[in-house]
């Protein structure tokens, strides 16, 4: 390493937060969060393979208030990453780079992911008759 004290760029703190940059970093954060969700899925499947007791322990954990909070976070992360991922695929096909479109699709992604999160949880609670 020639010089460890070189100034780092970009100087994020000098920029005003904007919807484009905030949604961009949120895509990355939700992606990392979803890697942990994948670990939970592996644990859940493995618990069922281990047997009824292990599966019951996993279900108790997931049904606790903390488990539900984590699952709610995972649900939003999945829907956000999915919706914004579609936005990314649009960019890959050179669609939607205009500033107006960037902002509009960003707003759509946020509204869609929040709606899908609430909708899926309502459906889940409805399914067990707790609605």
């Amino acid at each position, binding site marked *: 390493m020639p010089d460890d004290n070189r100034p780092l760029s970009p100087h994020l703190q000098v920029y005003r937060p904007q919807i484009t940059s905030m949604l961009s970093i949120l895509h990355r954060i939700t992606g990392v969060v979803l890697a942990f969700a994948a670990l939970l899925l592996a644990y859940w499947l493995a618990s*069922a393979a281990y047997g009824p007791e292990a599966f*019951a322990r996993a279900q108790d954990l997931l049904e606790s208030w903390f488990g539900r909070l984590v699952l709610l976070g995972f649900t939003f992360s999945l829907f956000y990453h999915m919706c914004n991922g579609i936005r990314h695929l649009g960019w890959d096909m050179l669609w939607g780079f205009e500033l107006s479109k960037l902002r509009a699709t960003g707003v759509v992604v946020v509204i869609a992911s929040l709606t899908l999160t609430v909708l899926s949880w309502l459906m889940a609670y409805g399914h067990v008759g707790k609605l």
Partner: protein
Amino acid sequence: MINTPQQTKKLQSKLGRVRGLGSTREGVHHWWAQRMSAVALLPLSLWFVYSLITLTGTDYDTFVAWAGEFGNSVFLVLLVVTMFHHAQLGLQVVIEDYVHSELWKMGMLLFVKYGTVLFAASAIFAVLKLSIAG
């Protein structure tokens, strides 16, 4: 070699430009694999979320019967493989962006690669066991 101004701007040698070569590493494959796994994950994730909704509050027997059903087992294995592959590709980019020490970077990349393979293998084997052994 003499660089013309145009070449300096392109940051590529004449030969590289003629052959259409990039950095000669594996960026294009990584980029493509990330997109293709993302596209595959769209229907798989939607199917999975829908399944989770119908499995809310499930007991052991119901879950084992569901996971052991042929179509569900196939989709679960596909989901696990694609999900962990996509996660590995994504985490790799995050690590390469933020970890600047070569040693740490290499260590973390290996950790993520081995880890995702380990968890994917465990999850696949769990599905196979539920599917075949019941």
